[in-house]
């Protein structure tokens, strides 16, 4: 087993004292400076520290990626010949995707080709590498690709200030797990010196707190049910596996949307805006709508930089279906190098193709049946979650067989089932409230002591309900 790089520390989590310290220092320094360059330099330094705390070696990989694509994009802009421009684009894609492929897919590919090349050598097992997956590599790779492609397509000019470009790629709130930022949205925000705005800070604090509650109070609690069940699915009964799968669907949502909320909130406090990543996905009435509401920055990236270049829906129905399947398959593979993620992507590709091919009967579109459609979409999503969470295809098979065929096994204690049911209810009721009620307007109209009390209470609640083993965010592994 070959190991590289050897050192790996702990990532700085948003819900840690260490992050609070980093944030407070950066925030104070950022707003006390009068020069935009110094402010952005402060943010960049904080971002480098944020990443280097996890791995001081791999931060250089990130810096290399940033420098490389910065110069490539400038070369593309300067070049007059289309072939030179195309060659530079291909070079950039090869290097950035090559790095992603090396760190993320080497062992997966080795496992795939080993049966073919094994007869040529003497080793009986493939020489797997023990590679550390650079945190956020999937995210920053997509961001840098979108930048180079947009410059190539002349949608945006190449950035002339390295500091701005590096901050676009490395800004610590979105560095590790998104949202995937588009250069056209982010780079213009770095142009002008912003005035300190208490309203933005308050909004940021509220969003951060919302994310903290989702992560610490809901996601980390749900993990206590999901992890043991999915570690040994063969020992649990049907009801428990259903419960654990639903719990995982909610855990993933609360964990990832919680992270996104915290990232967006954190960026607001620096006067910067990150794109929205979730829009109440569990209230979607069909799978296509679901994908417009779930991990929006990834869905739109895949649409703009993969699905549309493949031909989108401009060709025949068959070609459109092929493009959907390919896009979702690669989307699945983006999440992880494994058959389970490939199956997850394929499963969602098939769902989208079926949705596009077979329109719903008219009667199923009645408003009264909205809850049924929402529930149906959620159940379909939960089936996909089995692939997403299972450790192997074999485990996924075990879970599916036990979920679909009533099977006896270890069950949840009634008190655990009760708490789990309460959490499910809270998540769905909160989603409904967010859909039907303008919470923002209520927050704006609330008396100052009430609004302040709600903030303080939320923070105290997040502290009280944080479990001991509050882990890293799920999407850190992608």
């Amino acid at each position, binding site marked *: 087993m070959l190991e590289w790089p050897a050192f790996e520390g702990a990532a700085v989590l948003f819900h840690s004292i260490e992050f609070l310290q980093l944030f407070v220092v950066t925030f104070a320094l950022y707003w006390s400076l009068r020069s935009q360059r110094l402010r952005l330099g402060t943010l960049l330094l904080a971002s480098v520290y944020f990443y280097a705390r996890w791995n001081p070696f791999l931060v250089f990989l990130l810096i290399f990626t940033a420098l490389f694509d910065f110069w490539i994009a400038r070369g593309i802009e300067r070049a007059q010949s289309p072939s030179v421009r195309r060659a530079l684009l291909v070079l950039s894609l090869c290097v950035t995707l090559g790095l992603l492929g090396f760190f993320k897919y080497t062992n997966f590919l080795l496992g795939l080709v080993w049966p073919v090349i094994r007869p040529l050598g003497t080793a009986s097992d493939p020489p797997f590498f023990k590679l550390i997956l650079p945190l956020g590599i999937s995210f920053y790779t997509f961001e840098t690709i979108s930048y180079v492609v947009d410059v190539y397509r002349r949608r945006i000019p190449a950035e002339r200030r390295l500091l701005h470009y590096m901050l676009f790629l490395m800004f610590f709130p979105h560095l590790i797990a998104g949202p995937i930022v588009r250069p056209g949205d982010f780079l213009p925000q770095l142009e002008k010196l912003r005035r300190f705005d*208490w309203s933005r800070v308050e909004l940021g604090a509220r969003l951060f707190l919302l994310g903290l509650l989702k992560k610490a109070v809901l996601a980390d609690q*749900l993990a*206590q*049910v999901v992890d043991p069940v999915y570690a040994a699915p063969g020992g649990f009964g049907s009801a428990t596996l259903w419960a654990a799968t639903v719990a995982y669907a909610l855990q993933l949502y609360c964990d990832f949307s919680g992270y996104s909320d915290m990232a967006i909130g954190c960026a607001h406090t620096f006067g910067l805006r990150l794109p929205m990543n979730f829009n109440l996905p569990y209230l979607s009435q069909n799978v296509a709508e679901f994908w417009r509401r779930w991990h929006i920055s990834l869905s739109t990236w895949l649409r703009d930089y993969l699905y549309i270049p493949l031909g989108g829906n401009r060709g025949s129905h068959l070609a459109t279906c092929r493009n959907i399947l390919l896009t979702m398959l690669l989307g699945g593979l983006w999440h992880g190098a494994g058959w389970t993620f490939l199956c997850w992507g394929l499963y969602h590709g098939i769902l989208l193709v079926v949705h596009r091919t077979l329109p719903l009967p008219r009667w199923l579109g009645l408003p009264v049946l909205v809850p049924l459609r929402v529930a149906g979409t959620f159940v379909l999503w939960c089936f996909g979650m089995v692939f997403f969470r299972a450790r192997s295809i074999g485990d996924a098979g075990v879970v599916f067989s036990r979920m679909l065929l009533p099977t006896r*096994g270890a069950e949840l204690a009634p008190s655990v089932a009760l708490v789990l049911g309460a959490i499910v209810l809270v998540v769905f009721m909160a989603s409904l409230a967010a859909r039907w009620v303008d919470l923002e307007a209520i927050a*704006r109209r609330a008396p100052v002591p009430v*609004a302040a009390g709600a*903030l303080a209470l939320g923070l105290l609640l997040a*502290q009280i309900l944080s479990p001991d083993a509050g882990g890293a965010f799920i999407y850190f592994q992608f």
Partner: protein
Amino acid sequence: MGVETKANPQRSARILLLAGVFFVCGQLGFGAFLDTAPLAVRFPEAAAALERARTQHPRPDIVFFGSSRFMAAIVPAEIDNRLRAAHGEHVPALLPMAVLGGDFVSTEFLLDRMLAQGVQPRVAVIEVSPDLLGRPPHLLSAQLERLFRWRDVLHWLPELFEADWSALLNARLLPVYHYRKELLGWLVGRPPPYLFVPAPAFPVAPVAPLVQPAASAQTLQRGLPTGIASAGDSPAATEVPDDPTHGVDRWARWLRPFHLSERCAEVLERILARCKKEEITCILVEPPVASGHRGLYGEDVATPYRRLLGRLGRDYDAPYFDFADRLPDTSFRDDSHVNHRGATTFSALLADLLEPLWLRGETQDSIDSLAP
């Protein structure tokens, strides 16, 4: 999240400022509540020990105060059996009152509470060692979390800062987070986790170690330096193979250079004075430690330590018995906690020590003559 902010900066500033005030008030208010809460909320181990003292029949005659070392080393049944074998049914009632992370501060607290509830033993066996008299006192953070109120914090402030300033800040300034398990346990009736899923009963693929240990055990070990309660106390510890060198490095960092803590010595002196006043015979016992640990007790440690115990012994008629080197290394689970074999042997030695004192009603001189 795409939310347009309606600019009202003054209102936002007021909200954030007031939220900060509420937050701080919430923390300090909860801290004040904790300070006055029943002992079982912050220090359930002491509450249980005091309850045992209050309800034990017959009333305890000999009480053992100390730390996890005494907890691991003293087997009351072994002492009882040995005394019975020699002298029939007329044996003293024993009461172990040692607690995890126990030191002289916790001993004084337990003694005061025990006497206040009318329990008055005839003999108090008190654990002593250089480790409990060094500065900074390394178990003080445990007492900070379990016993101290603001008054005590101010009294011990220099030592607390020296020992573990982050524990001090967490416990006093962020008590809502720090004592969340205690709070939830008090509110719900049992401590978290509430979503515990046990592993299936029949053999399956190995389960990832995600299941948290029982919260009660965590609560008991709160505030203890890493590894201090690892031996002899938690059920999980029984599965760890014996390693009499484990922990030496940590203690080496704490004991070198050795400075005798005047304040800890004062607490010990107060305990002895109180016992003398209450006519409780005190015996100071240094429990056995492994050879690696004893190696840390050089002249710089032993001289001031023995000088202090000698003076206290004379002033308060409290003899000191040194068992530090009485057991071989094979009797230890780690550098300072005995294993089952060591506990049996040490309990027998202790029984031999207590026997003349109790059954023969010997004078101080005869106790001294039994010194190991």
